């Protein structure tokens, strides 16, 4: 039907136009507790899983001569032939001495951002931290651009050898501020954020939503984006690098009845409209699975970890058949 006709029909049927704002009654989310932050309320859900997740052991950053500006594979092997195996040894080297002192100072200060700029890998730098400082994070939003509010921030961290998942949920759009405030408070306790595609999606989304809500939080955390590593080490082995593909091939796990991502925004909007908590349960579940998978995949996307994709694929196929 043409647009002109549709508008003419609409004029005849004015009832369709009467959109009224319904009063929001706070909905009870099963298993959730109401918390207050920034003067607003939101819901917090928590669950505990057997842990911990595998964490990379101590790395020897001092032996990585390539951290020096100007040292590549050629210079490195040349220096090794001359008997230099650690940065300390180069401290008095006529050519590299100055650089070496600079790197040693950064190592001393545990300046991860500085070292990262010099080419230190995530896995090496994680050795500055321990598993207790790491938080996994994943958000669910009502759109792909931060102009639309987000309504769920899930985090997962390790406590007393167990994995704890915490989810901050907004029962309607106005509670987003409380979610952002509570998440900010929680993130103060951690130094490393681990995400899947969070460098281009989740973290900018959170900061922009904070701006939209008049909160000017800054996150200087060390950020490990697992998608980068998955792309680098597994791209040629897997059909694609979606989190669910990794689950299937590496964890031998296939989600059943999971809600597809593109349905999440409209599901949430419908939930706010109807107050039917059953609608968002699958979304909360989806978010929790994402967090769990990240924690379990954390070590597997490490370049040193030998991944037997062939075997995993066979297992996955077998699992699918049964």
């Amino acid at each position, binding site marked *: 039907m*043409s*647009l*002109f*006709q*549709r*508008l*003419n029909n*609409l*004029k005849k049927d004015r009832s*369709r*136009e009467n*959109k*009224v*704002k*319904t009063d*929001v009654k706070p909905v009870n989310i099963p298993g959730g507790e109401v918390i207050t932050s920034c003067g607003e309320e939101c819901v917090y859900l928590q669950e505990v899983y057997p842990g911990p997740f595998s964490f990379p052991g101590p790395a020897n950053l001092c032996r990585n001569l390539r951290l020096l500006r100007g040292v590549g594979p050629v210079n490195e092997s040349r220096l090794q032939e001359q008997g230099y195996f650690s940065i300390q040894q180069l401290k008095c080297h006529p050519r590299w001495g100055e650089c070496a002192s600079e790197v040693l100072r950064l190592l001393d200060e545990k300046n991860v951002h500085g070292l990262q700029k010099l080419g230190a890998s995530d896995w090496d730098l994680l050795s500055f931290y321990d598993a207790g400082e790491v938080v996994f994070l994943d958000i669910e939003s*009502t*759109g*792909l*651009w*931060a*102009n*639309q*509010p987000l309504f769920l921030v899930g985090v997962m961290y390790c406590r007393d050898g167990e994995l704890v998942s915490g989810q901050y949920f907004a029962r*309607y*759009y106005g509670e987003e501020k409380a979610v952002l405030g509570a998440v900010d408070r929680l993130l103060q306790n951690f130094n490393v954020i681990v995400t899947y595609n969070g460098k281009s999606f989740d973290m900018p989304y959170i900061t*922009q*939503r904070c*701006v*939209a809500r008049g909160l000017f939080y800054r996150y200087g955390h060390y950020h490990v984006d697992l998608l980068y590593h998955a792309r680098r080490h597994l791209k040629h082995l897997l059909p694609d690098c979606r989190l669910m593909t990794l689950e299937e091939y590496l964890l031998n796990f296939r989600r059943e009845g999971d809600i597809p991502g*593109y349905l999440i*925004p*409209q599901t949430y*909007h*419908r939930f*706010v*409209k109807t107050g039917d908590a059953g609608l968002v349960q699958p979304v909360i579940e989806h978010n929790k699975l994402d967090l769990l998978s990240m924690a379990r995949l954390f070590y597997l996307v490490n370049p040193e970890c030998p991944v037997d994709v062939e075997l995993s694929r066979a297992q996955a196929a077998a699992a699918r058949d049964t």
Partner: protein
Amino acid sequence: MDFLLEKIKSDPGYKEQVVHTEDISPYSPEYGELSSPLHGLLNKALSQQGIEKLFTHQVEAVEKVRAGKNVVVVTPTASGKSMCYNLPVLDGLLRQPSGSALYLFPTKALGRDQVDTLREFNTNLCFGVYDGDTPGGEKKYLRDVANIIFTNPDMLHQGILPHHLKWHCFFSNLRYIVIDEMHNYRGIFGTHVAHVLRRLRRVCIYYGVDPVFIFCSATIANPRDHASRLAGVPVEKVDNNGAPRGAMRFVLWKPPVHTPYIQDAAWILSRCMETRLRTITFTRARQAAERILRFTKKDTGEEGGAVTAYRGGYLASERRKIEEGLFSGRLRGVVSTNALELGIDVGDLEVCIIAGFPGTIASTWQQAGRVGRKNKKSLVVFIAVENPLDQHFIRNTRALFSTPSERALIDPSNPYLLMGHAVCAAHELPVSVEDYHLWDDIFQELLVLLEEDGDVIFSDGKYYFNGQTYPAKRVNIRSSSLEPVSLRDTGSKNRLLEVVDGDSAFSQVHPGAVYMHQGETFVVKDLELDKSTAYLEQQDVDYYTMCSKDKSTEILSIEREKEFNGHKLYTGQLRVRTRVTGYIKKEEHTGQVVGGGNLDLPEQVLETTGMWVVFNSRAGELSNEYNLHLMGGLHAVEHASIGLLPLFAMCDRNDLGGLSVVEHSQTSGPTVFIHDTCHGGVGFGERAYDRAQELFETTLEAVRYCECEDGCPACIHSPKCSNFNRPLDKEGAVLLLHLLLGWEYHPTQHESPKIANREKLKTAARKLR
């Protein structure tokens, strides 16, 4: 300048084409005084530029902006218009350096040009161009620290508003919005821009700011009204021009009958090249620019390197090179479409050749204003083309100099254009009741429909965007719809030549069509619709092509109706179906038909608004009585009135379409439709309804006093007629127009040869059928 005219007049090639010479006297400057002085830095910069006093209009603009009023400045080209916004903005920002301003220009090139102007002020404010060509790193820097951003409506629509959260520093301090060359924002493009500006205002409200709007415009009939419709805010007018200007000699030139104007334009241009005068030639169509260039290059031989063509569709780098060439004087002549009409500084030019009325009086003066800046004497040659508008000005030599400019029209309630912007708005920020006042009532209705389509979701009192796509990408603000078609050269590995609008692709690049690019002729080999690509092959051909179409019109609803001297006039919604069915080839110099072909292309459906005239039964009766061809008469009335409607509304003949029928299933009687050619319409047809009396009077004059015997491009022929201007009956049109105006009709004298001709025409038409 005078010696050039003498040289032309004494040339053996001159055939008394000059029909009128108008000397436009120079005027002297008028200065004003500000009530409180400008910021010290600004005063210093001005005296460095050699400016000691401000013109009256500049003073008024500064005072009004200081008082927080929205203004529109309407003064001629080269009157120091950019000062009218630069001064108050810089003055305000220097006093409060945290503030910011947004400058909007219709094209990228203009924005880049104006940045250089601002640099001359030597302020410590941070400013830069933010458009598609700005590198990523610089973009982030500008977003965070810039006081002034130069951009264009396209970038604002696609790149800035959807990311307003990244711009929160800029928006929270936004104090001025400058919109230069406002007269460009009319018709479809203008309507789109009006919506983009409303979205901008919504974002401003969100960040709690209420910036002042400063518009600048060439002379149009309704600057104040247009500006306030564009932005949806009250605006005050500043038009007390105090800038001086040099003398200008304006020559009206009428090419001899049956000589293409293109040859005359090329001939004058060649003479200018010989006298080493720097000349700009404006043409109406891309193809005409290329053809004039070709003829000029032939005529001047080795001088060819000093003259070039310039038009939209060329790559940006090509265009930059030409602009620089002109500025530096390496190029002495350029043949341009209206692409160079806007304020790009191309240095001191001396002669301007306007090859064909550019469509509006405002544009004519804009083009003429490109020469003779800085008090120099200049020459403008206006070459009349064989079409009703041009001939109107040749017949009434005073008209061009005394007619007020046209009205710029936009239609912010066109649902087709607003629909896309409603989604964009919801994407930027959820839409609530408080936002409805920014748009017409139809906005609310569209949101209901959009929710039914699933594009937005109503929840908790607001409409939220629903989807994974980027809605701004789907709205092309430069056209009404459809994907553009890319033209590729099969001869050089399918290199991209240029892109054309999807709407006109069928008629411009159907298989077999001749298309010109950079003076070269290309023949379209294939048009792949699913890939939106046409494949062209370079061929040296000496013909051009025109296509024929099948067309039908259906009335969807009637908006307004009135009695008009016993006939009925209507406005309303129409559905127009067109199918390109074939084409003919015409010889380049003589216009003789030398071949053609049939085409099998899908039908295009256009829903738009328009007006239609239903004649009473007298029309048919009298046509029979005087042995006139009714269909031919209706057809001629349609062509001639469409040709003259641009006198009343700021539009182009191509923005209008028409159809005439002896019998229409939905009306009772002979009917002539005049409609807009964009989806949803922008009100050109309604304008014809409002000004029917004047329109048909002018039309009658144009038809009756045209010297031709039975129709020519200057009166009733249409260059884009889908039936190749058949059947047409000039005398029939005169009769019908008399009836329409309620005037007594007396058959024109010397009947006999005309009737014989008409008989011929009738038999020819019968044969065709």
